[in-house]
């Protein structure tokens, strides 16, 4: 399992670097190659505009990874801060903040991200904003629960009675204990943000043409499924390998770091 995850992830990493090294152009058009099947010139065939599917897959995964990383960092920062404040102070502040997370959680799946992306308009930046606006909730919930449990641990109380300030208590005495659980959560959220990005791009709300995105490629693949089934199959299998690898990697990290989410 661990081997599979490492193999697949390093395969994509090396492929992206080699693609960059050999200057594969995801946007160069070859009208003679439109929807062609894999050949020596186009290893994975060409898409509906005669662009190399391989080059577009590589650029797509790169963009997707960057978006996912940015969104994960932003959502984690916001979510952890909200969770720390709610868990540390408790009472009315906690109730208020948790009510807000309840409202965000009332929108199932990526519905809220779809709604935000719809009003903000398509594009890379707006996509990142839409995903960030909805993604912080799970971090806030997780951090709040853990902080509630840690707030009255003896080392925190000791530091408090020695006159430590609130920021010091939170960042020096509580946050470090949350590190491993947050690392694991971040791995899973990386996978789910990549899926969400692809879903929005699939719906035409994310990354816009001519930029490459796996979601948009999958949609084009569906459109040309009858004439060029290899297109959708190649994108589908690539997507499957990546999601499986990231999730397996997350499982491995969880076992390794021995994180217990239930207290």
């Amino acid at each position, binding site marked *: 399992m661990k081997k599979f995850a490492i193999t697949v992830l390093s395969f994509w990493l090396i492929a992206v670097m080699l693609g960059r090294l050999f200057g594969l152009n995801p946007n160069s058009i070859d009208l003679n190659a439109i929807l062609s099947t894999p050949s020596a010139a186009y290893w994975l065939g060409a898409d509906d505009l005669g662009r190399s599917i391989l080059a577009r897959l590589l650029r797509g995964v790169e963009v997707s990874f960057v978006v996912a990383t940015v969104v994960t960092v932003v959502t984690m920062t916001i979510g952890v801060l909200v969770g720390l404040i709610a868990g540390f102070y408790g009472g009315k502040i906690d109730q208020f903040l948790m009510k807000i997370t309840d*409202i965000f959680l009332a929108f199932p799946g990526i519905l809220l991200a*779809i709604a935000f992306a719809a009003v903000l308009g398509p594009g890379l930046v707006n996509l990142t904003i839409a995903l960030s606006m909805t993604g912080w909730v799970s971090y806030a919930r997780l951090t709040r629960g853990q902080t509630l449990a840690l707030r009255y641990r003896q080392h925190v109380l000791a530091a408090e009675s020695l006159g430590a300030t609130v920021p010091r208590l939170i960042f020096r005495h509580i946050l470090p204990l949350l590190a491993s659980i947050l690392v694991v959560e971040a791995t899973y959220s990386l996978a789910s943000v990549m899926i969400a990005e692809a879903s929005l791009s699939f719906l035409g709300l994310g990354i816009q043409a001519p930029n490459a995105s796996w*979601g948009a490629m999958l949609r084009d693949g569906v459109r040309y499924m009858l004439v060029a089934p290899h297109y959708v199959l190649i994108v589908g299998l690539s997507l499957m390998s990546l999601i499986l690898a990231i999730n397996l990697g997350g499982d491995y990290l969880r076992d390794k770091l021995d994180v217990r989410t239930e207290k």
Partner: protein
Amino acid sequence: MTSIFKQISSFATVIFGVLLLTFLLIHLVPGDPVEVMLGESASTADRDMLRADLGLNQPVVTQFSRYLIKLAHGDFGQSIHTKTPIIEMLKTRYPATVKLALLSLLIGISIGIPLGIFAALKANHWQDIVVTLVSVRLSAMPAFWLGPMLMLIFAVWLGWLPVSGMESNTSIILPALTLGFGLSAILTRMTRTSLLEVLNDDYIRTARAKGLTEKTVILRHALRAALLPIITIVGLQMGSLLAGTVITETIFSWDGIGRLLVESIEKRDYPVTQACVLVVALSYVLVNFVTDVLYRMADPRVKFAG
């Protein structure tokens, strides 16, 4: 009984929050929403008319209360493009989505629960490992992956089912399978876990000691107790199914509320977008609430925590 009121008041706050957030959506449009909707070439008179129509020239608080009052009368406003009242659109689209969601639920249950029982009975044998592995991994795969793959296999290669649309009676099968498979994967895992937990209980040992057959022990004694958490999951998943329909309906051109949402976004028909988001979110909240209440009523051990 006070706790049930607490539950209802918390439910009401969430509903209010959902209404507020959906209402605020249109104010998140960068720049002037009226210009975005009508395009730059629209005349000033047209713009002013739409602005007045949407109430955008009034203070936000007035706008929100007007929005609530209209909603209470079943008035979702009208589509900017077709000028039809949105409620009429919802009346034809919503049932299509519910039909799809219910069939998916049926597929999910009829695959997931038997498979989960099978896995629990064969716990730690190779059959269990295979079933668990497949279900864990399948549930991680998004609908926009599963849909095209099923379409490729059953519609393009085998030619058994129509590719998309709603014309034929069999059109519903592929979208329902797409949603149902994901659900069945989750249910398989839940059934397995829940059944294995129960199988260690004292009363199961008693039932076995009485000399009952393994089949009776499982089906009459263990499954009954294990079913409760499964029902909760089914309820919770019903809401997610409603959201999952957005992508599945788009893939298979199924004219439900999810596709209406995507179409309205493409046309920048924000009032329709707003209405679709609201209806899906409210359905989700309502299903969750009902599941929660039923669960607490069914299991006397669960007390309202408030």
